[in-house]
């Protein structure tokens, strides 16, 4: 009995020391991390807005992939989208014109494989989607040969992102339907 108590006590002390150490590091790094994330999000929004001023954020309650949207003063929208990638959710911001044509998009956070799905973070990745609405390429066969490097080894990422962008386009179409 005594032996078990001693063993449990040792494990408890080690865990408590580890938790204390982590708490100290967390208190130092947490504000920096959240500041960095907020900064990245603002930068991404500014990037996709194309110079238009960004209005209030509206949360979409039960959107499948659309989390919420901002209205732009040029009549367009910026959508906050969640895509299903290979390594979990991919968060992205995408701006659409009022008729649902994609004008810019950027990945904010992801856990995709470095060197494969992680390429979706790069600026050229979204080129094949820009200027498209309902005709968004959601299958890899609908892409040209030159896009092969975006998709090879990362078709899950591609499918996830393109489905989210298509959902965004559909969502924008319903928004305008309500307005007219």
């Amino acid at each position, binding site marked *: 009995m005594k032996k078990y108590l001693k063993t449990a006590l*040792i494990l408890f002390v*080690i865990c408590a020391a*580890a938790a204390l150490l982590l708490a100290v590091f967390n208190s*130092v*790094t947490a504000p920096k991390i959240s500041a960095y994330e907020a900064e990245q999000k603002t930068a991404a929004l500014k990037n996709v807005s194309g110079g238009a001023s960004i209005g209030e954020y509206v949360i979409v309650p039960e959107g499948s992939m659309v989390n919420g949207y901002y209205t732009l003063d040029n009549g367009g929208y910026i959508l906050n989208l969640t895509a299903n990638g290979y390594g979990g959710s991919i968060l992205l911001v995408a701006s659409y014109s009022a008729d649902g044509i994609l004008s810019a998009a950027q990945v904010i956070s992801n856990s995709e494989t470095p060197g494969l799905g992680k390429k979706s973070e790069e600026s050229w990745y979204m080129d094949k989607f820009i200027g498209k609405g309902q005709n968004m390429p959601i299958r890899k066969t609908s892409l040209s040969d030159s896009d092969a*490097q975006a998709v090879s080894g990362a078709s899950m990422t591609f499918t996830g992102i393109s489905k989210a962008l298509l959902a965004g386009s559909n969502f924008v179409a319903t928004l305008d339907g309500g307005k007219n």
Partner: protein
Amino acid sequence: MNIKELTKGLFKENPTFIIMLGMCPTLGVTTQVINALGMGAGVLFVLFFSNILISALKNIIPNSIRIPCYIVIIASFVTIVEMVLHAFAPSIYSALGVYLPLIVVNCIILGRAEAFANKNSIVDSALDAIGMGVGFTMSLTLIALIREVFGSGTITLFAIGNFNGVLKIPVLYQWPVRVISLAAGALLLMGYLKAFFQWFSEKKKGVAK
């Protein structure tokens, strides 16, 4: 103190090519040189501190609960590395992505704790950690270099000033052998390199006799 503990991880007991530890990150992260360097540095850091701490606690930790204790210690160091990188070097943090938390279950670290640190002195454990960590980084960088040069025709390093960190190799950049940068290429290359190192060490042994 034994200097052999330091050098054995580099070639004679190289974690990747000879004792075949840590294959999962080796195959996954070696698509770009910078990822290999970052992963190697992370493993080196965690291995160094976990080996020292486990060696220091080897007489306190009861044998029956040693694995949970090691995991707690290793996971704490990995989480610290993760938080510090996220706060102070976000570009490396986002480049390593999912592989950073995977260091927790990287068998090099648990393997060295189990096979070395819990039997040897603190100094020897620290030397072992440095040797193994540097050996792991070297092998990772070698694999990444070959895969990136042939698979994408680039060498990605740190971006400094005007240099964006990407070297392009003329012919291979236009016509890369794409399969080498995919998972199948990693396995093939790993097999060839393992065969090469096997041949090399056999040859060396033959000369010694």
